[in-house]
């Protein structure tokens, strides 16, 4: 293609992501977004104006060299595109799928001021998928330093940190409490949003290139304590995430049919409950399901439930049922990504905004039969800047449900703090760590991701893992002291 003028670039419309039809996809767990073709990707890449001072890069928590990789992509030099990508991002096939680009790179794109931003996320995914299939640019390992690092937790923060330290020439051991690596990418985010083959592909690729040792079934705090690790390793990074679920403090939370989003999603995603009894772990398929909360985890729970119902209906020839999303604020305050809300809506979720559960009602055999709720209205903005919900007196009503999934956020798992004297925690249970370096209050221990910030995004955890890896690298090289 001949070099286009800026004017010509501006005329190209943003390319839609081809998606599975909503009616189709409700009945399967296959990926919803099908990915760009090479032709579409190159055409989309032509839209980039190659800004001298690229704002998109500033919006990226790991500072991906966006104009460079896009330029290589549109010139058809995929190997070069991968190289540029991997300067800053080791896991592009994952980030391209789950990052909230609309508030990060794409949110900053200059094209977005008057029209639609470059579809940076979709291009990133295209490059990532190309590399997973072709493996053109194995991550290079620097000469061995002889230093040993333990990385605890193999989710986004730990993986990123481990890969960067591996590239730096250090001997890295990655500890994972579950039976496979990936953390929330595997147990939390569903197959139809992030196929597990992509997660395993990215992990295996990096691990093979860099000789990272993964130890699964190791629960730090129990199998080894942090102090045990410090005896054997020169540095320890904690990327243990925020895995402890919260429950509402209302009557009835222990009834059969009430579960945390973590339990529901783990049954479905990690344990493949939707394939029961081919896989051993069952998951209950409710006829009338209420998911409480409106974050990304709530959306994932809603969409998994819709699929379970559709699969069950196809199997038994019955009606599929209802999935409600119950949220105490209004649509404007929904914290989930707009795209997730849109997808959930297409797939048939029923939104119950300005509704708050007061009690879960039990019926036969201690099972859920309904929820007593109250209608809310919005008052003055609270500390978070969102208008706070106020109950409307006398508006109580009963909602008939048989399953309640609580997606109310999570906090860090306390196990890692067992026998870890000096590792300070906030009153929210998060580890105290420097935001730039990731250094905790305990010498030779770094932390980053949700264990420090509380539940946040995959990419912010990756950013924290990356910053900590840089500081650990300097420390191990003797360029800084503790």
């Amino acid at each position, binding site marked *: 293609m001949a070099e286009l003028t800026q004017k010509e670039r501006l005329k190209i419309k943003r390319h839609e992501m081809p998606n599975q039809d909503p009616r189709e996809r409700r009945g399967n767990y296959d990926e919803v977004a099908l990915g760009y073709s090479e032709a579409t990707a190159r055409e989309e890449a032509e839209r980039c104006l190659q800004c001298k001072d690229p704002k998109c890069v500033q919006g990226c928590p790991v500072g991906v060299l966006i104009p460079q990789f896009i330029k290589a992509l549109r010139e058809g030099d995929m190997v070069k595109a991968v190289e540029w990508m991997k300067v800053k991002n080791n896991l592009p096939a994952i980030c391209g799928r789950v990052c909230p680009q609309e508030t990060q790179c794409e949110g900053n794109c200059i094209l977005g001021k008057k029209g639609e931003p470059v579809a940076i996320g979709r291009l990133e995914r295209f490059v990532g998928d190309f590399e997973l299939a072709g493996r053109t640019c194995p991550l290079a390992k620097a000469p061995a330093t002889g230093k040993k690092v333990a990385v605890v937790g193999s989710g986004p923060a730990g993986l990123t940190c481990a890969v960067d330290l591996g590239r730096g020439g250090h001997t890295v051991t990655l500890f994972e409490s579950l039976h496979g690596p990936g953390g929330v990418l595997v147990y939390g985010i569903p197959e139809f949003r992030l196929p597990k083959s992509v997660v395993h592909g990215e992990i295996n690729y990096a691990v093979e290139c860099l000789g990272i040792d993964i130890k699964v*079934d190791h629960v730090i705090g*129990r*199998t080894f304590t942090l102090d045990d690790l410090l005896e054997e390793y020169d540095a320890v990074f904690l990327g243990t995430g925020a895995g402890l679920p919260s429950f509402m403090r209302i009557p009835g939370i222990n009834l059969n049919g009430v579960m945390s989003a973590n339990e529901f999603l*783990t049954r479905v995603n990690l344990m493949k409950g939707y394939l029961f009894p*081919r896989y051993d772990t*069952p998951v209950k398929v409710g006829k009338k399901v209420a998911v409480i909360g409106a974050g990304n985890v709530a959306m994932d729970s809603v969409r998994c439930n819709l699929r379970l119902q559709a699969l069950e209906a196809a199997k038994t020839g019955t009606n599929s049922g209802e999935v409600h999303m119950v949220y105490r604020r209004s649509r404007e305050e929904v914290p989930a990504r707009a795209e997730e809300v849109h997808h959930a809506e297409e797939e048939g979720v029923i939104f119950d905004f300005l509704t708050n559960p007061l009690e879960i009602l039990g019926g036969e055999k201690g099972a859920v039969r309904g929820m007593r709720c109250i209608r809310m209205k919005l008052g003055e903005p609270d500390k978070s800047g969102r208008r706070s919900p106020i109950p409307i007196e006398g508006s109580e009503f009963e909602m008939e449900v048989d399953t309640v999934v609580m997606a109310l956020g999570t906090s860090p798992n*306390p196990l890692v703090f067992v026998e870890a004297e000096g590792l300070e925690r906030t009153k929210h249970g998060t580890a105290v760590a420097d935001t730039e370096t990731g250094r905790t209050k305990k010498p030779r221990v770094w932390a980053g991701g949700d264990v420090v910030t509380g539940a946040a995004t995959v990419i912010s955890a990756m950013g924290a893992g990356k910053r900590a890896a840089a500081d650990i690298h300097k420390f191990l090289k003797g360029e800084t002291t503790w």
Partner: protein
Amino acid sequence: MYKILKKQVLSGVIKLMDVHAPHVAKKAKAGQFVIVRIDDRGERIPLTIADFDRDAGSITIIFQEVGKSTMQLGRIEPGGELSSFAGPLGHPTEIKKYGSVVCVGGGVGVAPIYPIARSLKEAGNRVISIIGARSKDLLFWEEKMRAVSDELIVCTDDGSHGRKTLVTEPLKEVLADKDKNVARVWAIGPAIMMKFVSLATRPYQVPTTVSLNTIMIDGTGMCGGCRVLLDDGARFVCVDGPEFDAHKVNWESLLSRLQFYRKEEQLAVEQWRHTCRLEGVSGEGGK
């Protein structure tokens, strides 16, 4: 992968295995549990640690074949391997010198009560043990229990061995005996047995500890599926337990939660038996 070093059939459906898992054996203590996964499609099964050998790097598990996974586990022979073996999980038993203590083990619960009784004995307690099962062929480790107890009472529901009674009867007699001056009771067994032990000790106000085995997935505090209602709120069995003050446990809630997946459990067993028939082997080993 974790190799099975030894297998012993304790009764038709109760089996013992020593599993090579040095990372777990190194830290294991009485009262803790492990999560076992047989293969890539397997569920995560919580099993209490029955014994451990730090030198051999092995953990002893004992299980009763009650569902598909335990039946499948029971068919694996020494030399075979398990996909996952994580632990030790949960808090260990608080072992110290209490004076006179009673250890009650019912059915397969004799396995986890054994290391507790042994540790209590080693800590200088006078240990009275009561073990029971539905019938003689379901009873195991009588001699091992006798070796770590100052007094051992054996009972079966059908009277085929020892006294014909439930474990709660001799327990009440021991509690009523002022000379015995029982300071503390531990009970591990079916939930219904632990409930009745709790009811038996309550009037005597003897602190009673039970080890709960609820439905669990990860075993590390992540899913909350194991939550149990105490009189001051919900707790997670995996990270807050597995031992709890029996007098605080809401037994009705616990018993009903244990039944929640009954239909799915039955379906899995039917499918398993069907597969086994196709393969021409017995689903339940040892018979």
